[in-house]
């Protein structure tokens, strides 16, 4: 299922109708995916959604039951992994423990029968690029996690693959290291201009590192788009809630409003507006989502009446939990710490801009 806008431009990789079954489990429903050339695409989803299976199908480690994998227009579905000209970095880096760093990095070139002198020269070059000059004689166990990852990248990139595959590359690193590596990876990708597919379950990583995100759930792609698009205009409740916190409301369309629909919240006696290009269908019941940071707390009287249940200080921001009469679930509002915060028990008004409310495709 393809939805949302993709980047325009040449397509490096296409997955057409890929399905895969393991025993009784359907890991991939017929899947469609287009990966734009020269960009980083993140396959994002919870564990079990099929993202790693998809990556392995692209790599050639899994043969799909149906469908085709097209690399630069060429059908490679029947080709074994060693003939696809791809690069891959595994979650645990998989550096060959019995070979030195230089030998690891040179491996791909050795398989391509490059003469030794040229190999060595390119290895040295590559080690400089990943900022590990002179590390050629060390062994994997002598390196830190971050260094191992850089060697793994050097090893994958040295063969100038058409597409680079990354399987949860930052999972094993601690927080501080992770942020540094996120930027380094983007740097490398920009420098080589190489099409990259990144598999992750970490939404923050996907948002930070990728040019486009394909959100996956239960074996299919639920939405694709730029990080901004997927975050600000999620198509389904799943996407809205996976990419951050979302307040989801049930409502009935009452009519048109400037730029969208006027709705009445179910349960609460309150009116609101949503922005959407589609024509309104009065009487239709829908779900819509608003991000906590887009909600505003106003003095009582303006906006939807609500009471503050709790206020939690989170360092860089403040979380208010509001109870709206008639609604079962609490509403969360993120605000700047230091802004006038409303104490628990206070009566306030809840408001948002129409363009921050996104209708969801799920049935209410």
């Amino acid at each position, binding site marked *: 299922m393809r939805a949302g806008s993709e980047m325009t431009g040449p397509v490096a990789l296409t997955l057409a109708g890929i399905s895969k079954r393991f025993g009784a489990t359907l890991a991939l429903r017929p899947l469609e995916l287009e990966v734009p050339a020269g960009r980083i695409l993140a396959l994002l989803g919870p564990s079990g959604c099929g993202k790693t299976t998809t990556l392995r199908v692209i790599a050639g480690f899994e043969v799909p039951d149906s469908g085709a994998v097209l690399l630069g227009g060429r059908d490679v579905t029947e080709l074994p992994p060693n003939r696809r000209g791809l690069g891959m970095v595994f979650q645990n880096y*998989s550096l060959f423990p019995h070979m030195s760093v230089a030998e690891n990095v040179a491996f791909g070139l050795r398989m391509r029968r490059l003469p030794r002198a040229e190999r060595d020269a390119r290895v040295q070059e590559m080690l400089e690029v990943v900022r590990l000059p002179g590390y050629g004689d060390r062994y994997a166990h002598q390196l830190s996690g971050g260094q191992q990852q850089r060697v793994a990248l050097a090893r994958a990139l040295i063969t100038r693959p058409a597409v680079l595959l990354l399987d949860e590359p930052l999972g094993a690193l601690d927080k501080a290291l992770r942020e540094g590596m996120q930027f380094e990876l983007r740097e490398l990708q920009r420098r080589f201009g190489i099409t990259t597919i990144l598999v992750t379950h970490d939404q923050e990583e996907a948002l930070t590192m990728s040019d486009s995100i394909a959100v996956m759930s239960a074996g299919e792609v639920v939405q694709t788009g730029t990080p901004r698009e997927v975050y600000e205009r999620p198509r389904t409740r799943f996407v809205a809630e996976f990419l951050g916190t979302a307040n989801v409301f049930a409502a009935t369309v009452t009519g048109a409003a400037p730029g969208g629909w006027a709705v009445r919240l179910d349960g609460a006696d309150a009116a609101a507006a949503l922005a959407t290009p589609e024509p309104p269908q009065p009487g239709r019941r829908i779900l819509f989502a608003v991000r906590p940071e887009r909600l505003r707390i106003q003095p009582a009287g303006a906006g939807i009446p609500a009471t503050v249940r709790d206020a939690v200080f989170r360092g860089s921001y403040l979380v208010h939990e509001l109870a709206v009469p008639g609604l079962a679930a609490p509403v969360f509002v993120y605000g700047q710490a230091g802004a006038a915060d409303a104490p628990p028990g206070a009566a306030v008004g809840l408001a948002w801009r129409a363009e921050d409310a996104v209708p969801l495709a799920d049935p209410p």
Partner: protein
Amino acid sequence: MRRRRPDPVAIALGAFVLLFAVFILAPIVIVVVASFSAENFIAFPITRTSFRWYWRIVEYRPFLDSLITSVELAFASAAIGAAIAVPAALALGRARGPVVTPVTTFLLAPISIPAVVLGFALLYFLSALAFGVSFRSLLVAHSVVAIPYVFRTVLSVYRALPASLEESAAILGAGRWQVLWFVTLPLVRPGLFAGCLFAVLISLDNLPLSFFFGTAQTNTLPVVVLSYMQNQFDPSIAAISTVQMAIAVAVLLVTERMYGLRRLNAL
């Protein structure tokens, strides 16, 4: 860690283990010492020392011949066992499904069968096949026993290797044989040598299996020593046993040196 009051349980256990160590070492030490006796009979403690019983090994042809036969047999059967077991272990190492357990059990079965039964059965089977009572028959028998030892350790080491290592090699352009040559086999080598070590040591001492294949020309050391022992009970038995042990220790040290067996928990 601060040292507190000595732990009575640890001390008691330690004392027990000390006695245990004496128990384990006593017969071995006695034999080694007795081999240097100058007397004509076994006596312990020894009064005078001499190397004469070691010379006996060279003088008494059956000792020397059978020692050579045993060593050749041990290494040859380990090699054959390895050639057969390694591909099997690699094939089974990444296999899933109901076929794995029965096949593994089957390949490990020869060490669970009493060697007497197997030796006896093989004797008649091989003579029916006109293999004869010869080195060839011995080789077949010892190879059958060598296979499980090598299979077990190689399988264990291979299973512990992350599959992603071979996958990395593949995606870097290595074909099946290249993956095996550059990645799989080098990493599986400690298992191979541990298994072969076991096979060699077991073969050197395998009396029940070799017993049935003895002839004047081909006999293994344990069989020769056993029959010698039943007629003459003198220190040459101690001497030849000590030499056999020295060979085994040498094999162990060489293998350990080359392949760092200490890292293997698969033992």
